């Protein structure tokens, strides 16, 4: 001890210095707080830009016209018409097709992975399926346009070159991993004791799954569906490329339809000059889209929290 430096003294001296630096210690939380506020500012930014321009839009176009009429001709030189219904039907139909693909396949995939597959199989299959979620949507758009549509045409001759069906299916495929992995999480959190209880009564795996596991995990499963829908509603590139831009109010999925997202792409990359009603309409549509997806996401979180079973 004698031969070494007096660490105690060293520390005390240095500490006085460093305590003077305690300004750093105090300012860091403030700095980090500012960083954390950026995310809040982002939301504020989104809401305020959308709200402001939407407000300008509704000065020109009544809410009634926007939500109840069926014609959308934003750039018509003769008589522009602004109804969101054609876009809503486009969005709803493509999302509906997507969910008709994603829900059954996603859920059965989840069931297979969580209830049927051996751990080894699961370990291989799960990450492979998740690859689907990582593929850029532009690639899916290309795939829908150049492969799925021509393929479907073989079976449905009336199918248009752009239509709601093909991008819907491809969106569904893209959403499979989301539904599958969230549902699987929900099923995994059902305690094994529950499965064993049913098995011990002579139930088959299918009966255990249908009558015990799925009911117990239902909130998480529904949440995964809702998030999937929300994802489908917000998806842009697939529909922009493969579903065309026809603004007819129709439910015919074999024909071209435009979604809210594709409309935004069209108007921003197209001809609408800023300051015109057509230009503001894109904010009104975007605001509708934003509110739609926000509500769905909040709803998903609400149900998964509210109905989480207390095991």
């Amino acid at each position, binding site marked *: 001890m004698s031969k070494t430096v007096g660490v105690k003294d060293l520390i005390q001296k240095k500490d006085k210095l460093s305590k003077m630096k305690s300004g750093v210690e105090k300012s860091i939380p403030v700095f980090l707080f500012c960083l954390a506020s950026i995310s809040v500012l982002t939301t504020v930014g989104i809401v305020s830009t959308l709200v402001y321009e939407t407000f300008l839009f509704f000065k020109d176009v009544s809410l009634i016209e926007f939500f109840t009429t069926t014609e959308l001709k*934003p750039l018509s030189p003769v008589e522009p018409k602004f109804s969101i219904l054609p876009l809503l039907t486009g969005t709803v139909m493509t999302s509906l097709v997507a969910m008709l693909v994603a829900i059954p396949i996603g859920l059965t995939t989840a069931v297979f992975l969580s209830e049927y597959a051996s751990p080894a199989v699961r370990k291989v299959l799960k990450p492979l399926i998740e690859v689907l979620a990582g593929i850029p949507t532009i690639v899916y758009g290309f795939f829908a346009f150049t492969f799925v549509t021509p393929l479907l045409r073989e079976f449905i001759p009336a199918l248009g*070159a752009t239509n709601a069906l093909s991008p819907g299916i491809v969106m569904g495929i893209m959403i499979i991993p989301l539904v599958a992995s969230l549902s699987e999480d929900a099923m995994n959190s059902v305690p094994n004791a529950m499965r064993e209880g049913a098995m011990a009564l002579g139930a088959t795996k299918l009966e255990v799954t249908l009558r015990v596991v799925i009911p117990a995990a239902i909130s998480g499963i529904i949440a995964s569906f809702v998030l999937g829908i929300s994802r489908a509603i917000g998806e842009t590139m697939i529909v922009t490329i493969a579903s065309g831009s026809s603004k007819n109010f129709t439910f015919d999925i074999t024909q071209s339809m435009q979604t809210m997202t594709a409309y935004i792409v069209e108007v921003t990359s197209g001809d609408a000059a800023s300051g015109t009603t057509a230009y503001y309409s894109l904010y009104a549509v975007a605001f509708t889209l934003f509110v739609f997806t926000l509500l769905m996401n909040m709803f998903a979180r609400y149900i998964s929290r509210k109905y989480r079973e207390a095991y």
Partner: protein
Amino acid sequence: AACGSDEEGSGNQAGASGGELSGSVVIDGSGTVYPLMARIADEFMSTEEENVSVEVSRSGTSAGMKKFVVGETDFSNASRPIKEEELAELDENGIESEEFKVALDGLTLVINPENDWATEMTEEEIKTMFVTGKIKADDDVLWSDIRSDWPAEKINFYGPNENHGTYEFFVETILEEQELVEGINLQQEYSTLVSLVSEDKYGIAFFGYGYYANNDDKIAAVAIDFGNGPVAPSLDTIAEDGPYAPFTRPVFTNLSIDAAKEKEQVKAFAEYVFSKGAAEFAGETGFAPLPEEELQESLELIQAID
């Protein structure tokens, strides 16, 4: 000094590995004109002035104008003449500009290759079938409504949407501002229209000649009888004073004179367009070249900018 070298450069160093100019040229506007302008820009950068960066966007004629009138772009392509309002705005912003014709486009009516009846139609037939209520109040027009020996099948109408100068030309010039037929399927992308018609035996669409010429294996063009027998659109017939003339239209580019004065590369590019580019690449991108004198006139106008 820089000015001098520029003139020499464009004259002597064509094909050389690069001129002395640098900086950027920003072009936006018509989607119809885009393929031609992109082709010219590409060639300009690879053979004339390697260090100049020409960027070509295609947000559409009107959207391009919006940027042009505030001085954001150097060139604004257009598939229609510039409008009064746009000129007024340019004035207001103190921007001097000049409109140049670049090439000729023929508005082409396209049908499915399997359509073996409507390969020839009269101008009048086109004008009536595309106007709402002209043939039938409910607009469910059948091919047989036009000529009785044609199939009794519903006609499916397609066209570019209101974003496009082509739409405006069709509605304003050809249909003389009468309302377009109800239920016409209007699309943003020409690619979509090509696909739609190529798959629809009873479909008919209108768009620029270039999109037809590049896809004549998938779609067919209607030969139009303007009174002197049917004329099929082709580079020859849509040329100045060609027999397809009623349906041809010039396409333009608007040059900001201020930009050309300030930036040598803008002027150099403009000179290139009218000395070489427009004539050489019009054909391969589906436009009829303008008569040489007209291009020469434009070139002289540009060279005179100081």
